[in-house]
């Protein structure tokens, strides 16, 4: 059976992200806080994803490689969470339903193991996404 790798993504604030952001977005703390995806343990088992290994997350508008961890705040199976920030915003759809607010939460994504991929740091990610060199 092919495991269903479709999930509902939520990108929101966490206190780890808030503290790290104030230290500076170039800090190691910010990388550690924001370049992770929180998942349900059962989903990780089903997809063969080990904790603290890279996964590729794809949405309708982009993709990003982040490190998978078991959710610190418990998620139902089928849901996942990337803390708001540069990594999360690689996959957030711009559709605003005529309110100005993008779809930061409740959009579909797929997740697959990506052991051979690296999680980019904030500069690599931003500049490669914008197609410019630093």
């Amino acid at each position, binding site marked *: 059976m092919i495991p269903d790798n479709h999930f509902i993504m939520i990108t929101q604030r966490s*206190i780890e992200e808030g503290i790290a952001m104030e230290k500076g977005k170039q800090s190691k703390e910010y990388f550690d806080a924001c370049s992770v995806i929180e998942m349900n343990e059962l989903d990780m088992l089903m997809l063969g994803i080990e904790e603290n290994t890279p996964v590729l997350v794809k949405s309708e508008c982009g993709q990003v490689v982040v490190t998978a961890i078991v959710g610190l705040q418990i998620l139902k199976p089928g849901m996942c969470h990337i803390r708001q920030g540069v990594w999360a915003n690689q996959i957030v759809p711009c559709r605003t339903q005529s309110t100005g607010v993008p779809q930061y939460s409740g959009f579909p994504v797929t997740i697959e193991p990506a052991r051979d991929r690296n999680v980019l740091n904030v500069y690599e990610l931003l500049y490669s996404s914008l197609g410019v060199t630093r």
Partner: protein
Amino acid sequence: MVLVREGIGCPYCGCSCDDVRITLSDDGKKILDVENACAIGTEIFLHATNHHRITHPRIRQPDGSFNEISYEKAIDFVATAILNAKKPLMYGFGSTTCEAQGAAARLMELGGGVLDNCASICHGPSLMAFFDNGHPTCTLGEVKNRADVILYWGANPVHAHPRHMSRYAIYPIGFFTGNGHLRRTVIVVDPRKTDSAGTADYHLQIEPGMDYELINAFRMVLYGFESDIPEMVAGIPKQSILEISKVLREAKFGVCFFGMGLTHTDGRNHNVDIAISLMRDLNAVSKWSIMAMRGHFNIAGPNMVWSWSYGFPYCLDLTKGEHAHMNPGETSTIDLAIRDEIDLFINIGTDAAAHFPIDAVRHLKKHTWITIDPNMSMAAEIADLHIPVGISGIEVSGIVYRMDNVPIQYRKVIDMPDGMLSDEEVLNRISERLEELMESERVKAEVPDISLQKGISPAPGFTQSLI
């Protein structure tokens, strides 16, 4: 001898805590200790004097590196860019004072641009719902002194507003709430079992994006149609809905705090709209208020300042010159960016490069990008011009509006590094420079020529009418 400053306002979230105690070094230049603030607020204060500050404006060179320039040159660059742009956009303001927000309005009215604030990617839909359905609200003081039922809907205060529960909503002992949290009932509605949900008496683990349906179910119970409710609504059993409805109805003073769970998901303003309707229905049998969990310490500020200036709280299109115009979806930052309608982007007091979807950043980066911000943010990193300013609330005094729209005077704790300016000073000086440039354009255009003799307007109508 160390210096201690008391009653200091925290420049982090919408709680705008104004009881922070700061210990300074002997010379008053370094922040040594922070008391009463949350972990994030403490980090902001300590970070202000514990790292290398950028104290001069920096402009991007053709080779990609930054070069330091004077404030005068930077101000001239911005004024010229605004003059030459067809549709400039100034966005941000979550971390600025109301004085700077007023100065920004003056500048963009003069330059004929679009003015938007962080509500545009946050509580903008809530403001739209307030237009449509009213806003039965109260102050956080009333919450502390009166509230016996607290409903957090799509909000996670433990992480995003760390002192909200302890200072206002759940734990404090108020005038009519003498037993603090012991006599308060806390309900959290969230698809995740968040740390806030862990503190609640009831946690409704709703299906993502099904908030409208669940609020509707509560309304059905209140209207006496409970027999028509299916066994499960939005992942919540009917029995729980009936139980919670009873708690809501029997509240002496209930308050619903809602967050991004309503405004970032499908439905947006309609989710908030029906939550307000639920409050109205509850007010027939009890007493309920509703309040948005505003994200930044002064993000309610631009909504207030621009509402009394123009009649609209965000997404202000001032390009028409004679009147302001607001239409989210058309004049909102993300939509303008995606449609490539903007040819100059000014990011102030926020970090659009880190917090916008990357597609929007890509579009905005096609044109000149100017960042006015104290810190080395991602928006400063990719900017063509970065103007550093004093940190509002720490180095710059000013008025801020708390999440319940109560204005608070923030006092500065330390001085800015020598030679630096505040947001307000920078914006006012750009306005003055822009006025000079527009005046010289007007004089040039007034040189007698054939068009004048024929009675044709010598300069673009909008520019002319403003002067």
